[in-house]
C-alpha cells in the first residue's frame, strides 16, 4: 500500500480514461448506426435485384434472395431497352465532360488572367445567375430553344447540361488559375508563343489537377441528371438515359409488374458511379464542397 496521495493520483487518470473509453465506444456506436441507415437502401436494393419477381413482391424484409438469378439484368438489358439507355448515358456523359472541361479551362484562364474584354461584367452576370437559380424554372425555354435549333436530341441534352455547370466550374478553374505563378506563362511568351500556344503548352497542363476535379463533377452530374433528359425524351423514348429509363418503369400504370427491371436498372446506375466515387473520393469531396460554397 502506498500513501493516500499517490492512490488519489493514480485513481484520477483511471476514471478519466474510463470515461474516455466509454465516449469512444459511444462515438463508434452512433457512427455505425448512422452508417447502417445510410447503407440500408443500397444493400436491400442490391440483393433484391437478384431475386425473381415473385420473390421481390412477397419476401418483405428478407435480405438475401432464396433463389439467385441474373435474369432481371438480362431482361432489362435486352428487352427493356437498357442497352440503348446505357449507350445514351455514355454519350451524354462523354459529351458533357469534354465540353465542360474545355469551356471551364478556357474561360477560367481568360477570366482569371483578365485577358477578355468585359471580363468583369461577364463574371458578374454569371454570378447573378447563381442567385436566380436555373433548373426546373427554365426547363421549358431551354427545350424550346434546342428544338428551334434542331437539336432536341442528345446534343441538346449535352449543351443544356453544360450550360448549367459552366458557372461553378469556370469559377473553380479561375480560382485555381489565380494561384498559378505568372513566370511560366511569361517565359512561354518570351519563347514566342501566342495566346493559344501559351494555353496549350503551359496553362492547360498546369490546370490538370483542377480540370480532373471538374471532369469528375461533370461525370457525376451528367450520369445522375434526371430533369433535362426527362424533358428532352418525353416524346422520344429511344433517347432516354438510364435514370429516365428507371423512372419510366416506376411511373407506368402497371408499375407493380416491373420492380425486377427497375431494381436491375437502378443498380446499373448506382454501381458505376459508386466505383468512380470510391476511386476518386478526394476529388469528389473537395470539388463538391468547394463548388457548392462558390455556388
Amino acid at each position, binding site marked *: 500500500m502506498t500513501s493516500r496521495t499517490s492512490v488519489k493520483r493514480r485513481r484520477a487518470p483511471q476514471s478519466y480514461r474510463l470515461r474516455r473509453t466509454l465516449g469512444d465506444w459511444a462515438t463508434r456506436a*452512433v*457512427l455505425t448506426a*448512422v*452508417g447502417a*441507415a*445510410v447503407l440500408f*437502401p443500397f444493400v*436491400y436494393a442490391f440483393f433484391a435485384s437478384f431475386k425473381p419477381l415473385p420473390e421481390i413482391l412477397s419476401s*418483405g*424484409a428478407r435480405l438475401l434472395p432464396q433463389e439467385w438469378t441474373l435474369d432481371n439484368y438480362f431482361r432489362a438489358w435486352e428487352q427493356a431497352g437498357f442497352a440503348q439507355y446505357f449507350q445514351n448515358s455514355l454519350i451524354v456523359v462523354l459529351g458533357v465532360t469534354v*465540353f465542360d472541361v474545355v469551356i471551364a479551362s*478556357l*474561360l477560367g484562364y*481568360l477570366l482569371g*488572367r*483578365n*485577358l*477578355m*474584354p468585359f471580363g468583369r461584367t*461577364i463574371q458578374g*452576370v*454569371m454570378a447573378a*445567375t447563381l*442567385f436566380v*437559380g436555373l*433548373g*426546373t*424554372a*427554365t*426547363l*421549358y425555354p431551354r427545350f*424550346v*430553344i434546342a428544338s428551334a435549333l434542331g437539336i432536341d436530341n442528345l446534343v441538346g441534352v449535352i*449543351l443544356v447540361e*453544360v450550360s*448549367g455547370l459552366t458557372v461553378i466550374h469556370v469559377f473553380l478553374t479561375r480560382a485555381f488559375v489565380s494561384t498559378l505563378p505568372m513566370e511560366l*506563362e*511569361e517565359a512561354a*511568351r518570351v519563347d514566342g508563343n*501566342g*495566346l493559344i500556344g501559351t494555353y496549350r503548352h503551359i496553362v492547360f497542363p498546369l490546370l490538370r489537377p483542377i480540370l480532373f476535379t471538374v471532369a469528375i463533377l461533370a461525370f457525376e452530374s451528367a450520369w*445522375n*441528371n*434526371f430533369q433535362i433528359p426527362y424533358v428532352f425524351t418525353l416524346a422520344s423514348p429511344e433517347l432516354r438515359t438510364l435514370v429516365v429509363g*428507371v*423512372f419510366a*418503369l416506376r*411511373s407506368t400504370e402497371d408499375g407493380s409488374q416491373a*420492380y425486377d427491371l427497375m431494381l436491375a436498372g*437502378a443498380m446499373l*446506375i*448506382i454501381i458505376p*458511379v*459508386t466505383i468512380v466515387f470510391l476511386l476518386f473520393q478526394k476529388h*469528389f*469531396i473537395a470539388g*463538391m*464542397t468547394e463548388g*457548392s*460554397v462558390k455556388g
Partner: protein
Amino acid sequence: MTVLDRAPLTRGAGTPGGAEPKSPAGRHRFDGWRRRERRLAGTIGFVALIPFVLFALVPVAYVVVLSFMRYNGVGDPTWVGIHNYALAFADSSWWSSVTNTLVLAGGSIIIELPLALLLAVLLNRALRWTSGFRTVFFLPHIVSIAVMGVVFFFILRPVDGILNGILRGMGVLSADVDWLGSGPTAMLSLILVSVWSGFGINTIFFLVGLQTIPHDVYESASLDGASGWQQFRAITLPMLTPVMRIVVMLSIVFSLRSFDLVKTLTNGGPAGQTDVMFTYLFEYFFSLQRGSQYGYASALAVIASVIIAVVSIIYLAMSRANEQRSDFGDARRRRREERNAR
C-alpha cells in the same frame, strides 16, 4: 491586374532581354499586338460562352416575358399583362404546394443540421477505424436522387414491403403502413429521404469548419475547468458560425428547389398533397392533363424564384442581426476574461 497582365506582353513584344520598350515605335507595335490578342481572346471566350448564354441566360428572360402572355404552344402568344400572376395568387393548390415546399425544407433542415453537427463532432475525434464513415456518409450525395426516389418507392411498398417488414419484425408496427398513401406519412417519407441524402455533405462542411478551430483554445478552456458541453457552447458553436451560415443557406436553397426526389418518390401524390412548387409548375408546362399552359406556368416559375430569393435574403438578414448581439461576442469576451485571469 492590368499591370500584371501587361508584363508578359511587354516582354514578348520583340524585346528578348525583357527590358521595357522605351521608343514610341516599340509602344506602337506593342499596342497593336495587344489589341489583336485581346480580340482573339474575346472571340474564343465568347464562343465558349455560347451554351451558357443560349441555355442559361436567354431562358431566364424568356420565362419572365412569357409570364405576361397567354400561350398554349399553338399559334401566337397573346399579351395578358399581370393576368397570370392574378390567377396564381388566387390558386389555392399553388399556395398549398408553396406551404408543402416550406414544410419539406424546414422539416429536413431541422433534422439534418443537428445530426450533421453531431456526426462532425464525433468524426473530429479521429478515432481509429472511423475515417471510413466519412465516405459512407457522403455516398448518398453522389448517387442520383431521382434513382434513389425510385428505390425508396420500392422500399416503402405497403404490402410485403421492406420497411414495413423490418418494422413489423422489430415489433414497432402491428400492421402494414401505406407510407406514400396518405399526405402526412408521404411528407414524412420525403423529409426523411432528403435528410438521408443531404446530411453527409453538411457533415463534411462542419468537419472542415471544426478542423480550423485551433487546439490551444480548447486546451486553455479545459485548464480552466470548462466541461465538454461548456466548451461546445462557448467555443465550438461560435467559431462554427461562418460555416453554419453557408450550410444553412445552401440547405434552404437546395430544399426549396426540390424537384427530382418529389417527382420520383411521390410524384406529388396522394392527390397533390406532397406537391412542391417545382413539381406543381412542372405539370403546367409538361403534363398531359394540365400541360401546355406555358404563360401560367412561367408566372409560377417567376414567383417560385422570387420566393427562394426572399427566403434566402430574410435568412441572411436574420443571421447578420443575430451575429451582432449573439454569444459570439459573449464567447470572445469570456475568452478575453479567461486570458486576463491567467
